[in-house]
């Protein structure tokens, strides 16, 4: 009888397990193993090469370039997204005219697929008659090839990311703000607390769990969101806007150097794990959970 129940239990779990192992766990383990083997090519089978792939990586100037790019990209998108989304949430967390419309407007970029967003921004960035250059033209400034020159390509991509995800994070901040009882603000008002003081002494500490959650998400996104790179720059010019995941895709599916792609993937997962765990433990002590 008991055995039968167990069989039923496993059968019910089976579809989920197959998907989970087939698409997550086995590939992950396989990737880790592959990073220590060479890429099979033609009649040359894969051979065990130990740390060779990792050694190659540290000497790879393009890898260093994309790592630097990705760090700059993360260093801007994470704080900028958090700051802008929190500011938007504070702005729409009150009774003002057209509140529903404003909230929707802020949230719209998130609803659009990143590919579509990238295409819209591509028009904004067009040299000469794109939105930005038309505005610059009004002031008599000369056109700029925003995504075509190495000095601005990465920052152009960065702006799109912030625009795309800030609205999403705003929803979390808005929800967090709405859990703060109104009478805390009233009690503080009776004491003569300024809006600024109230934000730093009460609101900010109380929404800290949400800020932590959002910052972890923003970090993951900084390494995960590369759709717009495909549409807008393909990592160019001269790898100026290439990010780590984009480079992995290039190596794995354009050059079919699967072993090297696996090595890069392991590095990315390790970086993400360290940052994620670090954020959690470092901030957790300063976060107030009710």
């Amino acid at each position, binding site marked *: 009888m008991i055995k039968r129940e167990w069989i039923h239990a496993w059968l019910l779990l089976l579809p989920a397990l197959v998907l989970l192992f087939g698409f997550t766990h086995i590939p992950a383990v396989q990737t880790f193993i592959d990073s220590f083997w060479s890429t099979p090519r033609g009649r040359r089978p894969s051979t065990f090469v130990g740390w060779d792939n990792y050694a190659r990586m540290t000497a790879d100037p393009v890898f260093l370039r994309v790592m630097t790019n990705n760090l700059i990209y993360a260093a801007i998108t994470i704080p900028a997204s958090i700051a802008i989304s929190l500011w938007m949430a504070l702005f729409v967390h009150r009774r003002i005219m057209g509140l529903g419309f404003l909230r929707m407007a802020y949230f719209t970029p998130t609803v659009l697929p990143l590919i579509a967003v990238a295409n819209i921004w591509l028009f904004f960035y067009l040299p000469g008659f794109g939105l930005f250059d038309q505005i610059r033209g009004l002031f008599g400034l000369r056109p700029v090839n925003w995504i075509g020159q190495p000095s601005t390509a990465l920052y152009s991509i960065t702006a799109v990311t912030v625009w795309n995800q800030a609205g999403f994070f705003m929803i979390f901040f808005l929800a967090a703000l709405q859990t703060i009882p109104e009478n805390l603000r*009233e009690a503080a008002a*009776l004491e003569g*607390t300024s809006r600024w003081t109230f934000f730093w002494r009460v609101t900010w500490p109380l929404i800290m769990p949400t800020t932590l959650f959002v910052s972890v998400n923003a970090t993951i996104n900084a390494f995960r969101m590369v759709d717009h790179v495909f549409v807008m720059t393909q990592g160019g010019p001269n790898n100026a806007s290439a990010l780590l995941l984009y480079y992995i895709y290039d190596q794995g599916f354009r050059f079919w150097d699967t072993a090297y792609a696996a090595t890069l993937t392991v590095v990315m997962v390790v970086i993400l794990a360290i940052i994620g765990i670090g954020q959690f433990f470092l901030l957790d002590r300063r976060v107030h959970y009710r």
Partner: protein
Amino acid sequence: MAMNAMTSIDEQIAIAAAGLRLEGVRKAYDTAVALDNVTIDIPAGAFTVLLGPSGCGKSTLLRLIAGLDRPTSGKILLGGNDITRKPPAERDLSMVFQSYALFPHLTVAENIIFGLRVRRVDKAERWERLNRVARMMGLDGLLDRRPNQLSGGQQQRVALARAVISERPVCLMDEPLSNLDAKLRAEMRVEIRDLQQRLGLTMVYVTHDQVEAMTMADHIVVMNQGRVEQVARPRELYAAPETTFCARFIGTPPMNLISARDLPAYRHLPEGSLVGVRPEDMIVDGEGVEAVVEGVEYLGADQLIAARIGAAKIIVRQPARTGAPDAKVRLSWPAEATHLFDADGRRLH
């Protein structure tokens, strides 16, 4: 010895009391009028209770006094100064909220001195005042705790301490005891009343509980549907309710109101008049008005007899040792225990 310590603490918190005056205060929302032409005096250093059923406007009135809302029209004066347009912080009053409004991420000590810190009171003075108030409120050992580590009664004390430490002459309280259990509520009633008297605070206390109002208040302001029904001392309110609303609202069970038509002795009164008699003033004996007994509720010391005079349902309170009444009884009451109300519900003198 303990008493001496108490008095010396009290002397250090010297508060100059100030009275409040509301003149023709009205608060209207888009769809409803919450307060209509409220004019009352709230004397300095006294305990004033705003009493009424939920939705009567008593909390709205308190929020207007606090400055959390603005009246549609009318004036609010504190110690003779017009504060109608002043922001809450400049009104020289403190407030205790129904949910206490403690900051969950701050310790008890930080919660209590929050206002002093915001107002940049010198650090040494801050701690001195904190120690004094904490000792007075019995919070000495709890200063490092967070609100979620405290019982309901302790949270209530922290909220009170935060109001007291501000040393402001007027303290507003919005149903502060409604989240406590019955035993604690009885204790806190005594404690709050005691605190108000020791510090000479002008207290404005909102409640829907007549027991709180009767036991704590110097003055009770009875409110109904945005209007003031009566302002009186608890004894006056019970002895001479000005309106049928007050008569029905105060007393457990409330005053019996019998249509004058049903009582031969009062048939001469105009149509719609009501005769009120407190349940404990009615006497069951051989003479008086005939009543049909419908049930008896035994309470231990007393019993409540539910009966009917004509169409009016009434309750008679009598000592339980009297025993069960007959199916039909005759009821009488002394002339001085009779309250007469006109058709509009106003007391006839």
